[in-house]
């Protein structure tokens, strides 16, 4: 007999009548008769095996990895390339950095209890890592052959599971500025914009839907707004500079990072995707070839202003940058452009 078959009300009455010390004695004898909790399909992800980013489920070993980089820097493309390999599967966007940020705030102020207790800190760290593993396993385990399970989230470089492979992708900030401006107009979601720019989408979003061709004129739309251009240029520069500093730090602490530039991937797709597979411990020969259907070839046949995969070219900024945009971009991101190796100096 289980509690499911018995009268729950009667059981509760009996429980209420039994004194607590007697309950403690009886519990081990009674518990086997109670209904078992529902099976937990992700229990294997509760604990890392050997490290924080490896789990074993029914004698099969799975490893987690991460892809990060700026928005519109080609993370979708790299995801599609990785998914050409039968032993890898990645999806997104998880954005674990948002939960990570919550945990960091929770742990840092000295007057807060968790900052004073090693035990509470350990519980928090363990809980965060378990949450990441379980979430990733829950979302990616459906692919039968995949043993490398990944998250693609456009974000700055930060180790979500210490030691797990991280792929970092960057793109020329000038192309990124153009690409992201079109992307925001196309998706037309003011809720996804910083509040100070939401009015721009309300102003231009509906018009873009009707006649996107009109927005090749960069004096209108998002690119026509100096504050937007400045914000995005600065954002890109800060992300790049952060990642350039973070990369050696992570590597020195045992988290491998594989850095790719969008432009290099464009120029040598086969060489770079083979390097990605090898970085993940996979045999490049097992991967399917890139194709138009899987959107894994560099660039697209023609420009489609209404598609998430709009053009996929590098150096496109040359057709769109005016003197005004160039001046603002240089003010905010000239140094980052040099440090990232896109220009030798600011005379471009």
């Amino acid at each position, binding site marked *: 007999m289980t509690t499911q078959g018995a009268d729950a009300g009667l059981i*509760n009455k009996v429980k209420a009548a039994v004194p607590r010390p007697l309950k403690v004695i009886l519990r081990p004898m009674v518990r086997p008769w109670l209904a078992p909790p529902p099976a*937990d399909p992700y229990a294997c992800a509760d604990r890392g095996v050997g490290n924080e980013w490896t789990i074993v489920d029914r004698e099969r070993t799975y490893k987690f990895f991460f892809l990060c980089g700026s928005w519109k820097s080609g993370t979708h493309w790299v995801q599609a390339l990785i998914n050409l390999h039968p032993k890898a599967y990645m999806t997104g*966007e*998880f*954005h*674990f950095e948002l939960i990570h940020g919550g945990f960091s705030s929770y742990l840092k*102020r000295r007057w807060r*209890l968790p900052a004073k207790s090693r035990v509470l800190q350990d*519980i928090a760290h363990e809980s965060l890592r378990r*949450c990441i593993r379980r979430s990733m396993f829950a979302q990616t385990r459906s692919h039968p052959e995949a043993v490398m399970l990944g998250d693609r989230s456009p974000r700055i470089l930060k180790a979500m599971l210490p030691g797990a492979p991280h792929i970092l992708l960057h793109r020329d900030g000038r192309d990124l500025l153009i690409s992201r401006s079109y992307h925001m107009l196309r998706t037309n979601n003011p809720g996804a914009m910083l509040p100070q720019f939401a009015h721009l989408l309300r102003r231009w979003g509906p018009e873009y839907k009707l006649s996107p061709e009109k927005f090749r004129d960069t004096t209108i739309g998002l690119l026509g707004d100096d504050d937007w251009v400045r914000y995005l240029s600065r954002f890109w520069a800060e992300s790049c500079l952060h990642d350039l500093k973070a990369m050696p730090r992570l590597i020195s602490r045992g988290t491998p990072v594989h850095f790719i530039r969008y432009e290099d991937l464009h120029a040598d797709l086969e060489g770079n995707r083979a390097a990605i597979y090898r970085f993940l411990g996979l045999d490049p020969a097992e991967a399917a070839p890139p194709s138009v259907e899987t959107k894994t070839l560099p660039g697209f046949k023609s420009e489609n202003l209404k598609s998430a995969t709009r053009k996929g070219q590098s150096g496109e900024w040359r057709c769109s940058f005016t003197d005004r945009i160039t001046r603002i971009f240089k003010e905010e991101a000239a140094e980052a452009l040099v440090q990232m190796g896109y220009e030798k100096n600011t005379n471009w």
Partner: protein
Amino acid sequence: MNVIRRTIQRLGPARGALEDPTPLVRPFFVCGHPRSGTNWVSSLLNLHPQVFCDGEFHFHLIRNGIEGFQSQPWYVGSREPVRSETERAFASLVLGCLTAQAHRPAEHGGKPGATEVGDHTPRMLRMLIPPPAGRYIIIFRDGRDVLVSWTFHLLKTARPDIMHPQVRPIFEQVLPAAGESADAARQAARRLLADRAWVQHYAAGWSDHTGHDLATMRQLKADGHASSLLRLSYEELHADTQTHRARMYTFLGVKPSEASPLSRESHTAPGFGREAPRSFYRRGEVGDWRNYIDAQSHSWFLERAGARLSELGYDVAPAASTPKPLTPQSAQPTTVPPSREEKKTS
């Protein structure tokens, strides 16, 4: 017990402190605006052998992160099964932390026998563990007393760097002289409380905070969770501590008769019998604002928070044109040990 089992089943298995398959604890949360008496409520609850309340955990900071993680429709976290996984992870973390803290050995400040374990954090009312498994105690206090108490507290903690730019300049002007003596702290507090920006900034903050809490309470009641919420007022607790602490124990399902008596030593008796401007336990009185807020400052306060005061049932009649002088008793030197800053000064 069914509630506990359902909660545990929903939370799923855990490990270590998170992993006890039958944690015989039931969580609760004490919240309210800073300086509204959340510490006092916690101390009162801890007089009961089955109750353990500690703080400040600030679990809501992790909650903020999780809400961000679930916020956009294209985020994986906004959809199942990941959404439920993160909820489960959060609930498991909260229960794990509360249990670990409560079930430390008694010599390390724990109470291993406690079944009702809670967090007191001065914060807005938000659901951390959904009711009925999570229970919430919220305390309100007259915003004018909060303002005075908060002003002294800020002078004591002396952190202009974390203050809002709107009030930082006046605070930086006043702060250097505030640490010299108890009287200097009182004078500094009076200067701050005579500053319009200061008064209105904190009045608006209090009004927003309590407004949010009242709206959340209405929503909880509308959702049928009124029994998972206990509302207290600092003033009522002050006037009849025994009755209202009994309400708290009953709310948590423990017997009021088993609680220890109130005492000055445990900071559980109402008020502290003296004013110690540089102590965390400064005064603990009702209506102390009349000693520090004049008619002008009061009118500034009412501009920003008068409606909220009325909504909570507080008297909003005009204040005296000048603050009441301190009573001889309250002006007496403090009998509590001097604070660290006072020791340094002496």
